[in-house]
């Protein structure tokens, strides 16, 4: 049992950035927009959060900066794809290429800086409960926020009028437009929500997961978050399960060595990427299920008829 508690704790920290980013992308995709720039938005969020925290000493300011940075990144994407009707796939790639370069440029002045990691919750008595205390009551607030957000998004999509409108825009933009909803405006908002959550995911990486900045520190997590949305067939409940499953896979390498598994570290590091491919194959091969759940207008430009 000695290994179980540390394992669960590392799974939580590895899953949280995936959950935050994919929750945001889920809303973006539900509106019919495919933003492949999650990796770039996360990186810019990570460096913005780190730079502001390191300069101001305030993690709250850092997190706000990361959210704003993520939103600004998604605003570039939204302007190009929604206003100028550029190809969404190409623009998403551009956003990632830009984000990698921009974050590395800003971050070059912050390599080697040290900051205090985000403090964990501490509730007397509850946090001190043996075994489960630290897991349930000792995390930093972004962990709780990630769970709250995915539940809130689930509620929003299934129980609110706003959620219905969002799904209508994603499933049939011409009908939604005909009823009188502003397709472009709603898609702007959904895209920026995705940007904010990706920025937050980046901030979690640079402020809590590994409290430091390193070039390309997201290491493909933005892309895995995109795959998670497909894995979840655009349903928030499955997103939560998927994020934690991937979190588990990605920390296996840390624990395998101590458990006496002697596989070269590179092969252990391949696991999350291979798992992403396998999971995509299993989910996507059920074409009917994908057709039923995927937003029908995903990736398509909308131009209101005049």
């Amino acid at each position: 049992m000695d290994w179980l508690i540390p394992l669960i704790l590392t799974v939580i920290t590895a899953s949280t950035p995936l959950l935050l980013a994919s929750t945001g992308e889920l809303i973006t995709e539900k509106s019919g927009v495919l933003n492949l720039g999650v990796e770039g938005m996360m990186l810019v969020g990570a460096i913005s959060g780190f730079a502001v925290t390191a300069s101001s000493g305030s993690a709250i300011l850092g997190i706000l900066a990361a959210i704003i940075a993520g939103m600004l990144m998604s605003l570039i994407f939204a302007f190009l794809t929604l206003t100028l009707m550029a190809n969404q796939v190409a623009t998403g790639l551009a956003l990632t290429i830009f984000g990698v370069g921009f974050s590395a440029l800003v971050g070059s002045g912050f390599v080697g800086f040290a900051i205090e990691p985000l403090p964990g919750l501490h509730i007397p008595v509850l946090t001190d409960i043996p075994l489960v205390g630290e897991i349930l009551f000792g995390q930093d607030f972004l962990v709780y926020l990630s769970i709250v957000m995915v539940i809130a998004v689930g509620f929003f999509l299934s129980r609110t009028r706003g959620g219905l409108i969002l799904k209508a825009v994603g499933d049939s933009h011409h009908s939604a437009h005909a009823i009188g909803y502003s397709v472009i405006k709603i898609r702007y908002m959904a895209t920026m929500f995705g940007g904010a959550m990706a920025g937050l995911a980046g901030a979690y990486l640079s402020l809590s997961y590994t409290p430091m900045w390193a070039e390309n520190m997201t290491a493909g997590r933005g892309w895995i978050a995109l795959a998670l949305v497909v894995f979840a067939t655009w349903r928030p409940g499955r997103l939560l399960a998927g994020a934690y499953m991937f979190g588990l896979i990605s920390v296996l390498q840390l624990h395998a060595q101590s458990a006496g598994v002697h596989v070269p570290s590179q092969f252990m590091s391949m696991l999350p990427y291979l798992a992403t491919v396998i999971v995509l194959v299993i989910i996507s091969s059920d074409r009917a299920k994908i057709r039923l759940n995927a937003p029908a207008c995903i990736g398509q430009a909308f131009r209101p008829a005049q």
Partner: protein
Amino acid sequence: MVRLEPRRQHSQAMVYLSPVLAILMTLIVGGIIFSFMGKNPFDALYTFFILPINNSYGISELFVKATPLVIIAIGLSMGFRANVWNIGAEGQLTMGAIFGGGLALYFYDSESMFLLPAMFVLGAIGGAFWGAIPALLRTRFNANEILTSLMLTYVATLFLSFLVHGPWRNPEGFNFPESRPFPDAGLLPVIYDGTRVHLGTAFAVLVVIAGWILLSKSVIGFQLRVVGKAPQAARHVGFRQKRMVWFTLLLGGALSGLAGLFEVAGPIGQLQPAISPGYGFTAIIVAFLGRLHPLGVLFGGLIMALTYLGGELAQITLGLPNAVTGLFQGILLFFLLACDVLTKYRVRFGTPAAKGEAA
């Protein structure tokens, strides 16, 4: 109020003008960024874009850097035309280097003239194999090739890292994570003395010509053009989307694999953990900069090669971080995509005409 009005036909002038416009806008934004970083923008732009190629050695280096970019981008542009988004060229490049380079390491004392041609073949096979996986997963299991090809890039890079840290590490290499140097018979001949311009550069020119012929004269080239422009019409006349996926991913993979082999058998001369400064990703921009046309790709490759040279020089002389290169590349792609709107739409000022409001 500004609005966009669709053109009846794509503007031919804008097809050629929009990349030029995008490059100009990137230079302006680049100048602004440089001045924010406390550098004289004109000095910095001069260092970045003129200084690297104001001597003959610089121009030869431009060809060396453009070689992999052009070879990869020709393959990618065929796929992008048919809406096959292979973004894992970096992984296919790595696999080509592993397959072809592996042969050179296995015959490390060979003097055979057949070694190099055999490495070419294996390099292409390695890249095509890595491209075949997303093709199979897309055609057989409907899995999105964007995500699978990218995930496989991480796998290929880690596999190369494993090889050079483990079984393929140079036994006389003081424990550095590097392979043995390739034998002379496994190195690309330099085709212009005093430079690093190698046989691969000549091959890149051949690829451009072959790509042009393929696109304009062959049946599959015609299908590629139609599938991209009118997917429904293409389905209607019976072009098989699956065939396009296989063709473009195998071609893109084989060319990327060759590009990777040329790097390790050319400028590098051995296997090491990092064999490419992101050529596979930059080639995506090259393909768009060249408007998915082989001749355009040739120019696009030279321009993007210049950003690598400029970045290196700016790092040495101005102390700018190397990341500036990536930043420039991203901004250029943004402007390219934004300027593209001008080929399909006319920008109009003022409110829509009365007819539009009545509708």
